[in-house]
C-alpha cells in the first residue's frame, strides 16, 4: 500500500464524516478521545499509529498531490472522494496498528541484532559494532541467544529456515519483503537508509516505511499463527494484554472499585471530558460493557435508531433530533453499537 492509498483508505472508511486532518492523527497514533473513538466507529483499527514519526508537512504534501491528481475534491467543509478514488482498487493490507501498537519496531530491532550476530559468528567474526544501540534490547537479545544456544551452527540454520518459511508465507509483495531485508545488516553488508531504499525503488520514503510496517505486521501474524520454535521467542511482550490506553486502564480500575465518573475525574485531577473519553474507549473494547450507569435503555435505543435512520455517526446531527441525550451518551451508544452490532 502506498502512503497516498493509506490516506484514501481512511477517507473512504470515515465516509465524508471527518476532516482531512483526521487520517493524520490516526496514522500518528494520537491517543485523544476523538481519534480513539473514531477507530471504533469507523473500523479504523488497522491504521492506528502505523507511522508515529509522520511529519505534518510530508502529510500535507501527500494530501495536496491527491487533490492535484483528482482523487480528493474540496466541497464546502468536507472533503469528497472522487469517482476515481472510489473506484481505486487498494490491495488488501495486513496492517494491524491497533494490535501491535508500534511494537513491530521492537520485534525488528531484536531480529536485526540476532541476524547480525548470526552473520558474524557463523563467519568467525566474534567482535562487531552492534547495529542496535538500545541497551535494553541488547541485553534482551543476549539472554535470548544464550537460551537458544546460538553458537551451535545448526541453531543458526534453523533460525534462518524459520525466517525464510514465515516470510515466504507473509501475504505481501516481493518488494515489501525486500524492503525489510534491506533494513538488516550482516558481515560486509550494511543495512540501507530509508532514503536509499526509496530511491532504489522509485518510491517515497513514506511509502517504503509504510510497506515495511505492513510486512512486519503480516509477518508477526504468520509467526503467531504457525508458532515456529525459535522466532516465536521474539514475540515476547510484543502484544499488549489490553488494547486500552494506559490512562483508560487506570480509569477502569477506579470504576471497578466503585468510584463514579466525577469522583474519578477529581481523584485523577483530570477533566470529566477526559474520563468520558476513557469510558467510550472501554465501551469500544468490551462487548459486555454495561452502559446502564450512564444512559438508560430507552435513550440508548433511541440514539441507535436515530443513527440508523439518518445513516450518520455525526454527533451534532443525532443530537438535533434527540436534544435530551448528552454528547457523551451519544458517543457511548455509538461505540457500543459498533462493538455489539
Amino acid at each position, binding site marked *: 500500500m502506498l502512503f497516498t492509498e493509506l490516506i484514501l483508505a481512511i477517507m473512504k472508511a470515515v465516509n465524508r464524516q471527518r476532516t482531512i486532518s483526521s487520517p493524520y492523527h490516526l496514522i500518528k497514533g494520537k491517543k485523544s478521545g476523538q481519534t480513539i473513538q473514531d477507530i471504533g466507529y469507523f473500523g479504523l483499527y488497522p491504521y492506528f499509529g502505523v507511522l508515529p514519526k509522520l511529519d505534518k508537512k510530508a502529510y500535507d504534501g501527500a494530501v495536496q498531490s491527491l487533490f492535484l491528481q483528482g482523487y480528493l475534491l474540496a466541497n464546502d467543509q468536507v472533503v469528497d472522494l472522487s469517482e476515481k478514488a472510489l473506484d481505486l482498487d487498494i490491495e488488501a493490507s495486513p496492517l494491524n496498528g491497533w494490535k501491535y501498537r508500534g511494537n513491530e519496531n521492537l520485534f525488528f530491532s531484536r531480529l536485526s541484532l540476532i541476524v547480525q550476530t548470526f552473520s558474524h559468528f557463523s563467519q568467525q567474526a566474534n567482535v562487531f559494532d*552492534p547495529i542496535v*544501540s538500545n541497551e535494553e534490547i541488547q541485553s534482551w537479545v543476549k539472554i535470548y541467544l544464550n537460551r537458544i544456544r546460538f553458537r551451535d551452527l545448526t541453531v543458526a540454520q534453523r533460525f534462518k529456515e524459520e525466517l*525464510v518459511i514465515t516470510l515466504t508465507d507473509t501475504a505481501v509483495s*516481493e518488494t515489501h519483503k525486500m524492503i525489510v531485508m534491506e533494513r*538488516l545488516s550482516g558481515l*560486509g553488508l550494511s543495512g540501507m*537508509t530509508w532514503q536509499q531504499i526509496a530511491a532504489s525503488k522509485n518510491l517515497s520514503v513514506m511509502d517504503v516505511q509504510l510497506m515495511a510496517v505492513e510486512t512486519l505486521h503480516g509477518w508477526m501474524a504468520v509467526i503467531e499463527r504457525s508458532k515456529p520454535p525459535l522466532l516465536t521467542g521474539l514475540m515476547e511482550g510484543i502484544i499488549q494484554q489490553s488494547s486500552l490506553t494506559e490512562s483508560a486502564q487506570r480509569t477502569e480500575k477506579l470504576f471497578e472499585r466503585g468510584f463514579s465518573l466525577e469522583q474519578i475525574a477529581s481523584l485523577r485531577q483530570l477533566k470529566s471530558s477526559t474520563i468520558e473519553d476513557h469510558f467510550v474507549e472501554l465501551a469500544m473494547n468490551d462487548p459486555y460493557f454495561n452502559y446502564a450507569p450512564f444512559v438508560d435503555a430507552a435513550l440508548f435505543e433511541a440514539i441507535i435508531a436515530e443513527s440508523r435512520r439518518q445513516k450518520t455517526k455525526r454527533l451534532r446531527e443525532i443530537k438535533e433530533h434527540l436534544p435530551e441525550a448528552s454528547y457523551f451518551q451519544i458517543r457511548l451508544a455509538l461505540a457500543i453499537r459498533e462493538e455489539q452490532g
Partner: protein
Amino acid sequence: MTLDDLLYSTYGFSSFRPGQREIIERVLAGDDVIALLPTGMGKSICYQLPAKLLPGSVLIVSPLLSLMQDQVAQLKKMGEKSVVAINSFLKPEDKEKIWNSLSSYKFIFISPEMLVQPFVKRQLQQLRISLLVADEAHCISQWGFDFRPDYLRISEILPTLKFPQVLALTATATEKVTEEIKKYLELKQPYIYCHPMDRKNIVYDIKKFEDGREKLDFLKGFIRKFNGPGIIYAGTRKKSQELSMLLTEQGISSAFYHGGMEHQDRIFVQQQFQNGELQWICSTNAFGMGVHIPNIRHVIHFQLPTSIEGYVQEVGRAGRDGQPALATLLYAQGDEALLESLVMDDLPNQHEIEAVYREGSAATYLLDQGIVRETAFRVLSYWITKLPLEGVIRQMELLRSGKRQQAAKIREFLFHEDCLRSYIIECFDQELLDKPINCCVNDGIDYTAFEAYSDSKEKQIPLEWQDRLRVILPI
C-alpha cells in the same frame, strides 16, 4: 606486570603510540596531567589502562552524548563490563539500579550537567574516585569552537570528590586554551604533554573559484580523478543532500549524513562507509565523532570551516593509517561573507540576552517557544549566574570579537602565500621542525601520491530478498 604486558593483554597491541606511555606513567605517579593528543592517537587508552591499576573508580566527564555512547560501546566491545553512563536520558528505573551499585563500576561516564546536581553529587561523594578525566577538555574554553559552560562547573565537584587527580584530554588546544584548562580545573602544577600537532601524511590543498558553479564542476572532476574513501563537508544539511545526489548522478557511491536523520539511518551510513560500500560521505560537521576508519584518503571542505581548530579536527579524520591523505579546501568568491554570518548567527543576540536575564535560566519555555535558541540559552544560563546584565553583554561582545578573529584566521589561511602547514602549526603555538616533501599547495603537491579513480569497485547487489538474506546469513 609491566605496562607493555598490560597493553598487550588488554588491547593486543605490542607497543604504545607516541605520548601514551609518558602520559600513563605520569597518571600512575599521581600527577595531574593535561594531554594534547591529535585525534586518532588513542586518547582513551590514557585513562583505560591506568584504571586497571588504580583502586576505586574512574570518573570520565564527557561533553557530548554521542561521544559518551561511543566510548561506552568501545569499552564493551573490548569485553569491559564494568561501565556505566550517566546522562539526562536515563530512565528512572535504570537510575535507581545504577545508584544502588555505583561503587561497583570501574568506569563511570557522566555529562557535566549531571555532575553538578546535588543528588548526583551526594552519590559521588560516597565513592572512591581515584581519577577524574575531563574528556574534550578544550570545551572548557570560552574562546574554543565548542564551549560548554557546564564544563566550568567541574571545579565545583572537586572538593566533593576530595580533590582526585585529574587527567584533561583534548585534541586541539592553543597555549591560551591550555592555560584556561589549568585555571578552571584548578591544576597547580600539571604535567603537560603536548604532541606535535603536525600530521605529516596530510597534504593541504586550497582551490579558489570565481563562483559556486565552478566549485561544483571541480568537485565533479575530482571524484572522477580520485578514489575514496573520503568525506565532503558541506555547511548545511540541505547542501549535504544535494552533493550526495550529485555524486550518485555521476555513478559514484555516496550517502549523506546529518543530525536530522533518524538514529538507525545514521548507523547504517557509518557502517556502509566502514565496510567500504561507500566511497564518499557528504556530511555536515555531525559526522566524524566516534567514527573509526583508518583509511580515509580525502577530506574536502565544500564550504569554509568556521575556525582553524575545527578545520584541523575535521581534516584530522583522514589518514589515520599513516598513508598519504589529501585535505582540499574549496573556496568561491563571496564565501567569506557567508562564513561571517554563519559564525555570528550562533551567538546570543541582545534580545536573547535580555530575555534570559529577565526570565531566568529556569524559563525553558523560552526554548520551547523558539524565543531563544538552544546554544544561546546554554551559554547565557551559565553567565547570568556569574555576572550582572552589563557584564553578560560585555562577555558576549568579547565572544563575538573572538569569533570574528577566528573567522579572520580562516580568511588569512585562505590567502596565505607561504607554507599552509606552518601556518596551521603556528596557530597552535608550535613550530614546524621538518616539512614533508608532499606538503601543501603553496609548496607544490604531487597528486600521484593519491590513488587514481578506478571503476572496478562495482559491487554485486542482491536483487531478491532471498538473495540478500543468503549474503547476510551464508549458512
